[in-house]
């Protein structure tokens, strides 16, 4: 029973954080600084979470670096979300396979 109470508290706390700004901020923000700040937030957070985490997630750091560079190029030249995500896995898999023989 206690476990379900833990899970309920986890779920409520997580949901509160996600739902409050979305429901409390009802109109477009006029303040130029805040608008600019919120415009940059997604790119900054996603970039921070990508590197160096991508290099630390793989068995071989070099495979992660290759995947990062390869993916940036593929995305730059118009690769779709799916293509970029799958290439990322493919590059790591191949790179680690090759490194076993080198």
């Amino acid at each position, binding site marked *: 029973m206690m*476990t379900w109470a833990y*899970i309920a508290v986890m779920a409520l706390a997580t*949901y509160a954080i*996600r739902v409050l*700004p979305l429901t409390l901020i009802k109109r477009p923000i006029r303040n130029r600084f805040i*608008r600019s700040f*919120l415009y940059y937030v997604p790119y900054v*957070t996603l970039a921070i979470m990508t590197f160096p985490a991508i290099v630390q997630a793989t068995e071989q750091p070099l495979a992660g670096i290759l995947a990062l560079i390869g993916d940036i190029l593929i995305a730059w030249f118009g690769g779709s979300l*799916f293509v970029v995500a799958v290439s990322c896995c493919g590059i790591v898999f191949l790179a*680690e396979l090759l490194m076993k023989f080198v």
Partner: protein
Amino acid sequence: MNNNQYACGAPHNRIALKAGFRDGIPIGLGYLAVSFSLGIAVRDAGLTWFQGLMASWLCTTSTGEYAAFSLIAAGTTLLEIAFVTLIINARYMLMSCAMSQRIDPDMPFWHRFVIAFHLTDELFGIAIARRGKLNPYYSYGAFLTAVPGWAIGTALGTVVGSILPPALTSALSVALYGMFIAIVIPPARKNKIVAGLILVCFAASYVSGIVPLLNQLSEGMRIILLTVVLSSAAALLFPCKEEEEVPAE
């Protein structure tokens, strides 16, 4: 504006639902791989696979769940669980703020409560990457394919532990980073400021991981701190133009 624009049978909403459904598939696959290891933490905490499944479905947050499960394993109070969950997940508050600015004021209000439910890094990323106002049906489509991957992966991890060979786990674990790259690069190509900012973020993220004091902060706290500092700096140095509806697009 009439509310028919948000009727669930409207053709453009069906198209958005399908697009979300499709874009959610790679996220779901990545989730399946990543949440596998979360399932091991569930087992260590003494929870059943069903409790792990429910926790993952209700919370959909990797670091938040990891921290909570390890607290449960150590024996903790409900208050402590609430506090840690709030701190570790605080970055979602920033994402939720950013999202509020992309919502059409005419959208029926209840959609906000549903969109917020699975506001994860990845699902936030793909929703914000689309042009113009958010279409809630796009998010719902993505929920349908992405979230089961997270919940089922956790349950599988709890039951069978690590059955995947390391080479496969290693390859699958980077799928989510590939997705982040796919989201940030196209705008970087169009906007030099965003491109430069991303490089600065990579560098700052790396440095913050090795600098004393900073590297002792939890992953979640570091993400919040860097996001606030770097986004503020960018907003001060390169403010968006006043008249633009959605800046710099």
